[in-house]
């Protein structure tokens, strides 16, 4: 067997050692990983730039829309305020008591042999009830009966339009005065009527515990 002498073994060992130098290998790995990371970073940065351009576009859209939205919101709240205020005012207008038709009914109920010389009426918007006092003089052979006729006619007339109508005598007394009506001397009586009603038929007065009973008091 031939003897082989490796005279370069030291050089070979040194070359092998250089090839597997951990620092060198580590540096190579590090450079490789860093390169991968840089590429990844650039890819992410590109994506971020795309998102940024999208954001710029959306912000531009919003800048165009925002003034319109603000003005629409202001207009909406203004319109809502107008609608609500108008609703309340409409309710107030519709809830008013109209005196003219009431006075017309009152005047239609007065016969020629009766004369009204005082009226005091008040409408309470909270309780939705009207109370009135009518003072007058009635003449006739039976002046009290004439007064009662007026009361009944007034009740009938008012009941056609209004609710919970109650017309009661507060005062009914004979007078000594005799008046001449259509050439005939007639005795007179002074009366005072108290009227209570609600504006709409079938609508109870808010303040009333129960409807006033219809009374036909004979005085």
């Amino acid at each position, binding site marked *: 067997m031939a003897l082989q002498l490796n005279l370069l073994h030291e050089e070979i060992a040194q070359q092998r050692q250089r090839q597997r130098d951990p620092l060198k290998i580590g540096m190579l790995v590090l450079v490789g990983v860093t390169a991968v990371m840089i590429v990844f970073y650039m890819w992410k940065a590109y994506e971020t730039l795309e998102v940024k351009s999208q954001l710029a576009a*959306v912000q531009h859209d919003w800048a165009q829309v925002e003034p*319109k939205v603000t003005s629409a919101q202001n207009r909406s709240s203004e319109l809502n305020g107008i609608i609500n205020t108008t609703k309340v005012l409409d309710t107030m207008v519709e809830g008013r008591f109209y005196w003219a038709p009431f006075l017309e009914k009152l005047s239609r109920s007065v016969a020629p042999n009766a004369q009204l010389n005082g009226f005091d009426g008040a409408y309470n918007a909270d309780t939705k009830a009207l109370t009135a006092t009518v003072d007058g003089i009635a003449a006739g052979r039976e002046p009290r009966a004439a007064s009662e006729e007026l009361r009944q006619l007034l009740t009938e007339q008012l009941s056609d339009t209004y609710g919970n109508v109650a017309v009661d005598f507060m005062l009914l007394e004979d007078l000594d005065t005799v008046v001449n009506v259509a050439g005939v001397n007639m005795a007179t009586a002074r009366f005072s009527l108290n009227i209570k009603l609600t504006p709409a038929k079938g609508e109870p007065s808010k303040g009333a515990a129960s409807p006033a009973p219809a009374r036909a008091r004979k005085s």
Partner: protein
Amino acid sequence: MSDSKFNRDQIQKMVLSGIGFVVVIYVYFTFFLGPLNRSRASMERTIADLQRKIGSSKSEIQKASNLGRQATDATSRFSAYKNLSPDGAPIAWFPPRTKAFFTSQKVDRVNTRLETTSAYTEPELTAWMRYNWVIDLPGADFVTLGSAIAELENTEPLLSLSRVTMKAQANDPQFQQVGLTANTTILKR
């Protein structure tokens, strides 16, 4: 020295490489990729937020437009109510207006005075005030007065009469001494 074993120098170099690797990874994630991701996430949130706002704003604009169409009637009525309150203090213009009205209705003697003013409790009427007036008509014929009241109630929707008193004049029973208590709703100017 065996091939499979590392010498001390090599171990030091490996540890150094490991430390370098860890530092590079830390710097990369902390100072580069992390802020980039955070910035992107923040921008995406902002985009989503703005897109939601743009979406809702379209319906908001549409709603306002619909409301404007629906409120045409209310708006015109509101303008009419507002026009019933001229500029200036009501005490300056209401009594002359009342006098002119009753004069046009053939009731010549009119005296109007302010009784009270008060604010409304309703939140919708914060811009409006309630004024109570007493209108004295010392000599009014009943029929003329009735038609004048009817006209007043029809032409002044924000006026309501809360009290009416009439007393026949002793010397001239055809004419009555009339007192009207009127409540008016007037816009604050």
